[in-house]
């Protein structure tokens, strides 16, 4: 707001507008214009040229999640180069990732089993962007992999490697490629990716 001589507190100053008023600079509709819908668009060049004010705030929150019993076992398994599932006594399904409850029967699950580190591709996609939506030069192949030894349809999400995007197909047989024993820390990234079998 421009500083003005002789303007008293309480006096109506609405007609004076703002020094940097995006409405003056682009042809977007002002509030409740002809079509009766409110909204003033701010464009990339308004931002770039500093035509309106903004406040910056950057936040970074840290968490330290308890993995609990089931995921704790799963991660411990990964550290040992094994994939752990749990088996429901009621529906007999082998659940991966494991949990201490079966969501379909609402029953306690306390039987633990190893499943294979081989499986089939249930579905896949090819990502050309990173998590900030920036384009990346080497696309990433993502897949849901149904593991051998788990019940049908029990997949986990992971990456595919050592394969060209055009060669991937649904139903393709794949195997986990593990980090070395020394590098494994009990994380999903202990498996680097799955490769064609």
């Amino acid at each position, binding site marked *: 707001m421009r500083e003005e001589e002789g303007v008293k507190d309480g006096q109506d100053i609405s007609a004076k507008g703002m020094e940097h008023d995006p409405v003056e600079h682009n042809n977007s509709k002002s509030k409740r214009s002809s079509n009766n819908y409110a909204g003033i668009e701010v464009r990339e060049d308004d931002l770039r040229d500093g035509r309106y004010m903004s*406040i910056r705030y950057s936040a*970074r929150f840290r968490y*330290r*999640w*308890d*993995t609990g019993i089931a995921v704790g076992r799963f991660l411990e398994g990964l550290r040992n180069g094994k994939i752990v599932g749990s088996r429901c006594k009621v529906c007999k399904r082998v659940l991966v990732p494991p949990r*201490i409850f079966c969501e379909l029967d*609402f029953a306690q699950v306390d039987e633990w089993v190893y499943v294979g580190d081989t499986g089939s591709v249930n579905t896949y996609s090819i990502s050309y962007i990173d998590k900030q939506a920036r384009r990346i030069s080497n696309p990433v192949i993502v897949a849901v992999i149904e593991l051998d030894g788990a019940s049908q349809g029990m997949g986990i999400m992971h990456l595919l490697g050592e394969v060209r995007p055009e060669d991937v197909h649904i139903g393709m047989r794949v195997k986990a490629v593990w980090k070395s024993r020394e590098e494994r820390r009990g994380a999903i990234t202990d498996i680097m990716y799955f490769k064609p079998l």
Partner: protein
Amino acid sequence: MIPKGERIGIVGVGYAGLADTKVRSAQEPSHTASSTTNTASASTNTTTTTTTPTPTAATSIRYSYKELMFLAARMAYEDAGIVDVRSKDRISFICSTEDFWEGNMISDEYMPDQLGAVLRPLCTVAADGLYGLITGFMQIRSGLVDVAVVEAHSKLSDVVSKKEIARFALDPVYVRGIYPEIDPYFIAGLEMNRFLYETGNSRESCAKVVSKNKGNALANPRACYASSVDISLVLSSPIVAYPLTSMEISSYADASIVVVLASEHKARMLKGSTDGIVWIDGVGWCSDTPWINDRNLADALYASLAAEMAYKMAGIEMDEPSKYIDLAEIDDTFSYKELQHMEALRLCRKGEASRLVEDGCTAMDGYMPVNPSGGSLGVGYLVEATGLHRVLEAVLQLRGMAGSMQVHGARRAVVQSWRGLPTASGAVAILSSNDS
């Protein structure tokens, strides 16, 4: 008043939690020992962080939030007489969560499995658990469902950046800009100062609330911060935001609480009789302005408007609601809040709360016990689960199953919650046992 036959009852409650050492902060003097530790028996435990998914040495054995929810839900269903929750039709599930406390950007996603809610109606109410209870109440009353399962939890031991998240709730332009590193507790200081100034309530009575609630908590197996403390210790603990001292601030804890509601007809079917059913006689909730500077900081307007709505629904006369109420489980996130909320709920006249506390009227054996459970000061602050935890404590009281905390002859309770800093939002429920 809700006519007989159309009432909605609480038929089951469940709880899972553990007294948490990881969240014990500098606010809590080391001599206040935790009274309970429900540790899980598990063989492995690893912990991860956002940045590096690397397991660190486990310091204690804990359940994940999903596992806590599963245990609480199982207990609540058993209590409610629900043999197989998966076979139920006309059932709805409600969770009360806020994303940043969960560390998930759409926390609703991770709720269904451990409640038995897969392929069932489940929703999240981004509010305190008492709002969740009210949501279930409305869903049943509308005729849409017969049973509503309400869950709320706190897993604050997972959250490292508690202070940063609390600050993130402040208005991004006006308030955060004042001083970037500001501790949101300053708002409590502003409120407390204005409240004491306008009402003439005494500074000492605030400390008395702490001493009373932590003392009450000694009998509560769910309490994490029970102790016998003298008011002089409370008053001499470090000042956090003048006039508020560190011991007048409730400390974080972990728990999951599940409450099962049912229509009167369904409640009788599930329980086989009316024994153990706690009726919801009235509910109310309200929000005051989000502008801290525009609010009347002395009065908890949100609480008085919410209480007015709930009392009216319950047929409780507004001039002296305490005549109808045997105990109160009301918000005590900070010591002065209990006094402020007592007045807002008209459990006493404005400026009288101090006298009631000092005369022992609000003690366990007083004529109007306030927070016999120990409240947030004694049990621990459960963020969005706080209101639902109070419901659980009130239900146990009204069933006569509160053990050594039992308020004799308790038939009707008022439960109230506040959404915490920087909000002016809260809810109220009036609960009663069968024979009231």
